[in-house]
């Protein structure tokens, strides 16, 4: 029955119709045929017992006057009934007194042992009916009549009945199939249509299609409800799409506005920095000229002031360069290439050692940190980080700088660690702001733009940067490089 439950509504409806009608007809046919058979048998028994009664009445005198010839004449009258195969008249002592056989070749075989025990009765077998009646005279049994009858008539009638019934059943089922084939359409077609529409809706996400159906019954209301549901979904979808479009448009507008404002700001800061350089250079140039050419005319305090002016102009030049760098980092295009951070770190440390030969710094550089990114920008970032570490470990007797990386939840994290001055963790959010300084200029000189530059570079590589540290115990700056870091790692593994 699993296959039945999987079958289409159409098939189910037809099967149900055929099955119910077939069973009903079959039951009716069996009942009618059985009743027919019973009544035919009863009728036969009744007819034969009438015949037996007639023979019994007519054979009485023949028995009394012991005239078998007369008895045989009486029995011969049974010839009129083709069903009777044989008949016999028995005497009281159960001797065969007179016989009649339809087919002489059979002889009296059919009559042998046919005599019943009681005065009257019958045996209805599969092929013949044996019926017997006592012949009574003066209240005494003086003999017995036995009639053996054929059932071929009943068999023929039953065969005919069964044939008629089978043809009626077949015809009725054919008509039923035809009718249900037509009628089921009114039920199954709307359901099939509905199923088709539902499939189309779920596959093509097309909520504009509509199921069709005109019937007013449950299927009609189902179709209507389905269509209403589709309409509602379509409306909601339209509204949703409109809202999304509006939102996207607004975001795009805002982004454009922001980008424009950002560009203006950058252009402004760039031009300001650039334009500030020329007057600064002339201040520096004239100050130096003054110090060289008119040194004799200046007092010691005048010379000192002049020296300070020159120092400030140098510092201001550095500031402007830093600003220009920062601006350039923001505007520069990021070119993705394979970059060996380990090699870069080595180069930077060597440069720093050359610049300050007297310092003893232990540098540990992990090998194999190959990433995807912009070589120039990544070099600038590392330069800032290692330069900071170099700077803040100046007061340490045994300075130590480490560059390395670690795997952290599918992402490679790079770090630059030092055992320098460190910082208060509560200021960690200010570390990466431009011109934010946690130490005095005298203690650790600098313009406070290095970590801001690092942050911009890392951000442009889709990475993140953060720092951990404690005052007097050193600092560790961590950074990731987004997809570039992952690519590098894969390359690294391939190389290893």
């Amino acid at each position: 029955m699993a296959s039945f439950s999987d079958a289409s509504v159409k098939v189910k409806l037809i099967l149900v119709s055929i099955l119910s009608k077939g069973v009903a007809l079959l039951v009716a046919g069996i009942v009618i045929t059985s009743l027919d058979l019973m009544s035919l048998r009863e009728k036969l028994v009744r007819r034969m017992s009438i015949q037996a009664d007639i023979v019994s009445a007519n054979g009485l005198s023949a028995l009394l006057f012991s005239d078998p010839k007369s008895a045989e004449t009486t029995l011969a009258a049974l010839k009129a009934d083709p069903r009777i195969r044989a008949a016999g008249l028995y005497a009281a002592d159960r001797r065969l007194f007179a016989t009649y056989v339809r087919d002489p070749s059979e002889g009296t075989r059919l009559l042998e042992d046919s005599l019943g025990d009681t005065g009257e009765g019958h045996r209805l077998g599969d092929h013949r009916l044996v019926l017997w009646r006592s012949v009574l005279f003066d209240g005494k049994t003086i003999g017995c009549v036995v009639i053996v009858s054929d059932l071929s008539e009943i068999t023929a009638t039953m065969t005919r009945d069964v044939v008629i019934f089978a043809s009626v059943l077949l015809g009725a089922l054919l008509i039923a199939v035809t009718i249900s084939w037509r009628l089921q359409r009114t039920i199954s077609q709307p359901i099939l249509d509905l199923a088709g529409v539902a499939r189309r809706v779920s596959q093509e996400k097309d909520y504009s299609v509509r199921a069709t159906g005109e019937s007013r019954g449950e299927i009609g209301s189902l179709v209507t409800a389905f269509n209403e549901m589709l309409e509602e979904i379509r409306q909601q979808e339209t509204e949703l799409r409109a809202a999304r479009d509006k939102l996207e448009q607004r975001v795009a507008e805002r982004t454009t506005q922001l980008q424009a404002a950002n560009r203006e700001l950058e252009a402004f800061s760039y031009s300001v920095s650039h334009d500030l350089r020329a007057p600064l250079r002339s201040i520096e140039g004239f100050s130096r000229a003054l110090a060289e050419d008119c040194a004799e005319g200046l007092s010691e305090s005048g010379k000192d002031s002049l020296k300070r002016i020159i120092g400030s102009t140098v510092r201001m030049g550095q500031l402007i360069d830093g600003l220009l760098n920062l601006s350039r980092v923001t505007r520069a295009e990021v070119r993705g290439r394979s970059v060996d951070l380990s090699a870069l770190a080595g180069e930077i440390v060597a440069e720093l050692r050359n610049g300050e030969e007297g310092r003893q710094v232990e540098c540990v550089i992990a090998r194999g940190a190959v990433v995807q990114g912009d070589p120039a920008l990544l070099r600038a970032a590392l330069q800032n980080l290692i330069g900071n570490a170099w700077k803040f470990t100046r007061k340490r007797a045994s300075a130590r700088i480490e560059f390395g990386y670690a795997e952290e939840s599918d992402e490679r994290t790079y770090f630059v660690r030092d055992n320098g001055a460190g910082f208060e963790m509560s200021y960690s959010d200010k570390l990466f702001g431009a011109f934010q300084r946690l130490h005095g200029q005298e203690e650790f000189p600098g313009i406070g733009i290095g970590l801001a530059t690092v942050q911009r570079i890392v951000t442009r590589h889709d990475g993140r940067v953060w720092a951990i540290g404690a005052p007097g115990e050193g600092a560790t700056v961590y950074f990731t490089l987004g997809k570039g870091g992952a690519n590098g790692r894969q390359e690294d593994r391939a190389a290893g």
Partner: protein
Amino acid sequence: MVRDARSRAGTLLLCLAAAFIPAGGPARGGQPAPGALSEYQIKAAYLYYFSTFVDWPPEAFSRGREPLVVGVLGVDPFGAILDDTLRGKAVNDRPLIVRRFQNIKDARDSHVLFISSSERDRLPSILKALEGAAVLTVGDIDRFASRGGQIAFRMEDKKVRFDINVAAVERARLRISAQLMKLGRIVEEAGRQGG
């Protein structure tokens, strides 16, 4: 009473056997059955059977349950056989009684009358005397039926058969059942005058 009942049962058996055994048919024919019945035992039984296949006119009986009289005229060939055979028998609720007559005048009141062969020579006068009486005349006198008697016994293959004179029966206003008619040989009356 006990003796009576036993003898009655015995008589019935005898009587039935008388009816059937001689009719054994070709397969069983030939040798006579052991204890075969005598001719008159059979004839006595036949007299009883005749009475069951014959209808008498209503005026033949004066009252409702008047006995049916079986008479024997002349020298009785049956003896006790007839009494034994008919004892206790009844036809249409009428008990059968046996009477013996020497004079035809007395025999007019009987219903079945067996005319003994001793009356062979007096037969015409006897039949004449019975004219108008509803009496079934039975006899075994030679050519009894053709001489005006109604049913005549005759022997055929050692079996008792009978002839019927239908005209005589009709004259006596009796009706013989077709059952009986088909068993007997119908004979014409020879030389009857004024019929």
